[in-house]
């Protein structure tokens, strides 16, 4: 019997392509955000709202990832920005290669902020580097305030957490305080925002923060 030492990452290929993506984004001066959440927490709604508020000031591009349909891309079509839909055919996460492909299909070279909406899933996408600058995790109040404790990896790996659907707080028994506390328990450097895409509450602070990221990118 002989033993061959290998010591190579299983996701080595993905990480190499992610590194290439990072170089492409950097050389085009594009700030990239990888948005993660459970299905239906409001990723597309937040993207729509953000573009409606900042579209005049920042050049956006969006890559949409879904297991099936281009419904999310269709929703963004009226916003007059470059959008590419990735359909993963049931796949539970985006990988760096899919993003690399999508990027070459869109006209993104003038874009300042590229938002990548990942497949709705708090587990699988967390381990795949896409070459993004930051991961933004979205949780809605209807999901309960224990999500950070149940899905710690994605909260640890994200820079920002958006608590969405706060207009629904009166109807559910989860609290922003508890949700924030649980998230900070996992990752004390998480930047927190609370938003509603129905009342627009909190969206201005979020947009202000994004503008700063773009200016200082």
């Amino acid at each position, binding site marked *: 019997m002989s033993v*061959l030492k290998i010591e190579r*990452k299983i996701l080595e290929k*993905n990480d190499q392509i992610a590194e290439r993506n990072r170089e492409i984004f950097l050389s085009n001066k594009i700030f990239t955000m990888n948005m993660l959440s459970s299905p239906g927490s409001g990723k597309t709604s937040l993207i729509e709202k953000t573009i409606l508020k900042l579209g005049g000031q920042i050049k956006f591009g969006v890559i949409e990832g879904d297991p099936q349909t281009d419904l999310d891309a269709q929703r963004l079509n009226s916003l007059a920005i470059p959008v590419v839909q990735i359909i993963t055919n049931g796949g539970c996460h985006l990988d760096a290669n899919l993003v690399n492909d999508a990027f070459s299909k869109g006209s993104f070279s003038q874009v300042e902020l590229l938002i990548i909406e990942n497949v709705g899933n708090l587990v699988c996408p967390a*381990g795949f580097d896409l070459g993004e600058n930051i991961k933004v995790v979205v949780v809605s109040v209807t999901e309960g305030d224990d999500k*950070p404790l149940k899905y710690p990896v994605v909260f*640890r790996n994200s820079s920002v957490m958006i608590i969405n659907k706060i207009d629904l707080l009166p109807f559910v028994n989860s609290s922003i305080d508890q949700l924030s506390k649980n998230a900070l*328990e*996992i990752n004390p450097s998480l930047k927190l925002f609370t938003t509603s895409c129905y009342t627009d509450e909190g969206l201005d602070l979020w947009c202000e923060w994004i503008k700063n990221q773009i200016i200082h990118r």
Partner: protein
Amino acid sequence: MHEFSLAKEIISQVGRIIPVNDLPQIQTIKIHVGEFSNVMPDSLLFAFNSLIEGTILNNVRLELEIVALKVKCNICQQVHPIQTNSFVCPNCNSRELQLFSGSELFIESILMKDN
């Protein structure tokens, strides 16, 4: 379900490393899986075993070593294992911690039968 993608990656990486003629000599592939890597060991084994069935790698064993989540404290410099849902230094209660281990996901070694 990303365990299937990971199992495919393991198989294709082994295919890149080991010359085709030597593939039947592979007995065991040893991998390290961090406790904080979001990988379910049983799903990964199931995915791997389903994918190799009827192929040249048919009887290869995938051996998983689970690596515990440990953090290094920026304040007291000590390394400690922690629970996945509480990032607090067990020694000094600081929250300024770096991941020391637990996110691993790599092929450690391949055991080959001698021919």
